[in-house]
């Protein structure tokens, strides 16, 4: 029996605003699935929220994906906000210089307000 990837991604759209909720681990095992799924959504819109509230772990493979997403959104003049990352995730963003270009909010409500 094959092991299930430990990352759930849910997506919903609200008046052109795409909200993706990531739950679990974003690592070498789960990033191929996440890449396909999220890039597909990025093609569809201009404003995105990545809810990281339930993301418990991010590896270098996950960071690479985030870099790819940010480049894609920048190229199409779109906007992506990352909301509610846990302390561990925030620490990884900090040591990897990602805070220099990521737009992060403490809650999903704050992210929605910024994009409306």
């Amino acid at each position: 029996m094959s092991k299930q990837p430990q990352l759930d991604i849910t997506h919903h759209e609200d008046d052109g605003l795409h909200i993706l909720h990531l739950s679990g681990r974003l690592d070498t095992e789960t990033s191929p699935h996440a890449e396909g799924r999220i890039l597909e959504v990025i093609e569809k819109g201009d404003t995105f929220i990545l809810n990281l509230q339930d993301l418990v772990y991010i590896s270098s493979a996950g960071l690479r994906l985030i870099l790819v997403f940010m480049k894609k959104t920048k190229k199409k003049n779109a906007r992506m906000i990352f909301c509610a990352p846990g302390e561990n995730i925030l620490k990884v963003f900090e040591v990897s210089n990602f805070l220099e270009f990521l737009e992060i909010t403490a809650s999903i409500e704050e992210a929605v307000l910024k994009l409306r």
Partner: protein
Amino acid sequence: MNTAAVGDGISKEKALRGLFIAGFIDVLLTTTAFLLANSSVLLADFLKTFIELIAITLSWVAIRRINRGGGKTYEYGLGKLENISSLFVALVMLLSFLIIAANAVRNILHPGHIEGMGLWVSIGAQIVYSGINGSLYFKNRRLSRESPSPLMDSQTRLFLTRFIGNIFILLSLGLSMAFAGHTWSSYIDPAASLVIAFSILSATLGIFSSSVCDLLDRTLEEERQIMILAELARHFHDYEELHGIRSRCSGAQVYVEIFLGFDPEKKVGEVQESIDRIRADIQGRIQGSDVAIVMTNGPVS
């Protein structure tokens, strides 16, 4: 091959030549001691030093090949040659462990007191060689820190093991002779031998693990992967797309390939400047890295 690399290779070669001469004299002394005494510990010591000399010879030959030829033709393979030499050293050390352990078990099952002129020859040799091996260990440790490589790592471990071995054999022989009147003293030799055997096994596992992973072209560990991404994040505005990152280790050398897309409106000179900046920063951050940045406009497999 650059000048620094040539100088580095020559200093490694000189170090190994010194180790070879020391090892050869050690083999002569341990052979004499073994032939003039009935100690199985001295038999094990003789076998161990003999096999170690073979290992040193192989490492010396490998580093000479690296320094004298093949630099241009086998840029990637030279790292593997270092790994293969280290693996051979590990196998030789494993063999030493098995021999010493087998002798120790035999002596525990059939204990007997040790005697003969060879004991005094060995005690003298252990005193001299504990000094030599101790200083060679510190010298190799310094070289290994200045220029890390699996080969120098294995040599450092090897000479630490030999130094500990000298001290243990010295103590073992000294105590066995001092308490020769007691039955229990016949167990001192095999007990000390077992301690040496397990220290050799521990060093062997470390070398084996590191060399096998490198031979299989392992990618960089997480810490250094994040260092690469941190530099790409720092230069976020210098490129337009990230299409992929590949990395692998070959001996002490780290190879990184980064596939980036650039704004087509940018001049070639500007793109080149960006590439040079990113490459220099990653190479500065990851010791022994050789970074190639490839301009591409699509994903890489």
